[in-house]
Structure formats: structure tokens, C-alpha cells
């Protein structure tokens, strides 16, 4: 992009691309968070069932192991594990969607330029 000749539509396209990217990232993170909740519950439940049995079922143990591994992997990706992070992500997602709507709305963008 030639910085001395930046066109409005060119800049909007880049903003759209930025927000698409950030939205995708935020959604992925939120999905991970939700998956963590589910996996924590799953691991907890499976651990309770395994503890109840005198001779734990192989399939149950295996299933618990897989869930625990997946949980560990997701946790390693997440930088912030706090519950308020979910709210933040949901707000971010809303923000990006709003921004996308704004920057892709030609009529409004045209008005913005003229304004």
C-alpha cells in the first residue's frame, strides 16, 4: 500500500480483514473456553465414576485420559483462564461484528467519507 496515496476503500478493506481475523481469533478463544468448561465437567464426572469402581473400566479410564489431555492442551493455549475472560471475549466478538458491519456497509462508509 502506497502510504502517500491511501484510498478510503483500500483502508476499509484492510480494516475489514483485521476485524475478520480478530473475530476469528476471539471466537476460537471463546470456543476453547467453553470446551474447557465442558472438559472439566467431563473429567470430573469420569474421575468420580472411576473412583466408585473397584476395578475401573478400561474404557472409562481411557476416556478420562483423553479428556484430560485435551483439557491440558487447550489450557496451554489460553493465556487468561479467568471467568471474566469469557465476558471480555463475548464483548470483543460483539465489537468486531459491529466494526465489520460498519466497515463493510458501503452506504455508511460513503456517508462517512463525504461527512
Amino acid at each position, binding site marked *: 500500500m502506497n*502510504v*502517500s496515496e*491511501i484510498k*478510503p476503500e483500500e483502508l476499509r478493506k484492510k*480494516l475489514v480483514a*483485521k476485524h475478520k481475523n480478530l473475530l476469528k481469533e476471539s471466537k476460537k478463544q471463546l470456543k476453547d473456553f467453553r470446551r474447557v468448561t465442558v472438559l472439566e465437567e467431563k473429567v470430573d464426572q469420569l474421575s468420580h465414576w472411576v473412583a466408585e469402581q473397584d476395578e475401573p473400566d478400561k474404557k472409562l479410564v481411557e476416556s478420562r485420559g483423553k479428556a484430560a489431555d485435551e483439557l491440558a492442551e487447550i489450557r496451554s493455549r489460553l493465556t487468561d483462564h479467568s471467568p471474566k475472560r469469557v465476558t471480555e471475549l463475548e464483548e470483543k466478538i460483539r*465489537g468486531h461484528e459491529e466494526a465489520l458491519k*460498519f466497515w463493510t456497509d458501503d452506504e455508511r462508509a460513503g456517508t462517512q467519507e463525504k461527512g
Partner: protein
Amino acid sequence: MNEQELKKKANALRHEISSQNKKLKLIYQELGRRSSELKALRERRDELNSRHKELSVKAKGFREKRDKLNQVVKEVRGSRKELIKKIRSITTDISESKKLRDELNKSSKGTEELLESALNEKLSVLLEEDIPLKDEKRLYELVLNLSERLGTAKKASQIHEKIVSDFSDVKSMDDKIDSTSNQLKDLSLIADEYHKRALALYDEMKKVRSEANEYHKKLTDKYKDSSPPREQIQSIKDEIQKLSEELAPVSEALEKLRSEREDKRRKEKAVEAKEKLKSTKRISLRDFRNLLEHGGVSLSDVDDS
């Protein structure tokens, strides 16, 4: 006519012939003198004509050189005029460019470097950082504004470079004009010099022509003066011829008389010699010869005696 009268007449004629011959001689001498004078006049006239021709060739040479130089001067002046015209045009462009550049600088409100730095910073934040929409909208406007201003600053820079380049061109052309003006001055001086030399030669030619004409007039006048003597010569020759024709019969008659007298004398001498021979038997050789020729005696007669 008797012998004396014949002699008198012959002498008179001979005297007259001699007198006419003397006249003729004097006339020939005069003609000779005039011929020398004519030769001198003709030679001088021809010399002057030759000089006139020589001067004419030289003058033509100077005139041609002058005309060639004047042509060069005309062309050089034309080139200089074109340069001046070009300089004026470029100077006008520079003036307009300066105005435009200053307006653009005023509009850009910053240098190219500062604007680019600020723009890159804002653009980086806008496109890479996760910021609220209201901040994005503000930065969006700011980036577009900075970009526009940067474009304006770049344009002002380009125009400034063009101004500097044009100034340099004008300077070169000014130097060329100065050099051309000096060249014109030198060429004009030389052309003027050739012109003066040609004029000087024309003045000299005029004088030489005038002098040659004078000599030519003297020559033609002298030719006219020569004709009477030539007419005189013929008249005198005719007179000499006439006198000679008159003298011829007189001379013949005198010769005849003389011859007859001589014959008579020799015959008388022969008779004397014969008589002497008869008497003394001794005569001179001359008398003997005379006797043989006129005395009716032969050698055989002498031998017998």
C-alpha cells in the same frame, strides 16, 4: 641637252632625292620615338588594368568572407533569441511552480519525513491493534488526512526538485547566452574589418581605374598623332620614286656620253700604243690590254713580231 646640262639636271635631281631621303629619315626617327612613347603608355595602362583586376579579386574575397560571417552572425543571433525565449518561458514556469509549491507546503503542514513517520505509526495502530470502533473511526480519518497531506508534501517536493533543475537549466542557458554574445561581438568585429578592407580596396580600384583611363586616353591621342607622319612618308616615297624615274634617263644619257668618250680615248690610246710598239717595241701592260681590246691587234700578231 648637252652633257653639262645633263650633269646639272642629274645633280639637281640627286640633290632633291637626297633631301627627300633626309626628310624621310627624320620622320622615321620621329615615328620611332613616338612608338617608344606608345609602348610605354600601353605598358603602364596594361599594368594598371592588371592591378585593377588583382584588387577586384581581393576585394571580392573580403566581401565573400564578410557575407559568410554576417550569415553566421544572423544564425547565432537567432539561436540566442530562441534561448532567451526559452529562458523566459522557464522563468514563468518557475514562478508558477514556486507558488504551487508554497501552497502545497502550506496545505501539507509538515515535512515529508514527519508526515510519513506519523502516518506509519497511526496506520500500524489502526490495522494491527484491537481498538474500539470510535477510536478506529478517528484514526481512519486521521490516516486518510495524513496520507493526503503526505501526498501533497511529496508533490511539493517534486515540484521543488523541478524548480531547482529549472534554475540550473536557466543558469546554463544564461552562461550560453553570455558566451554567444561574446562570440557575436568577435564575429561582428571581424566582419566589420573585412568590410573596411573591401571598401579600402574599392577606393584603390577607383583610383587605379581612373589612372588607367588617363593612360588609355593618352594612348589613343598619341595614335591619332601618328597618322600624319605615316601619310607624309607615303607622299615623300612617291616623290622619291618620281624623281628617280626622272633621273634614270638622264643618268643613262650621261653614262652613254661617258662611255662613248671613254671608247674614243681608248681607241686613241690604242693607236698611240700601236705606233709606240712599232717604234720602240715596249709598252705598258695597260696600254697592251687597251691595244688588245681596241687596237685591232691579237696575241698572235704580237708573237709574230
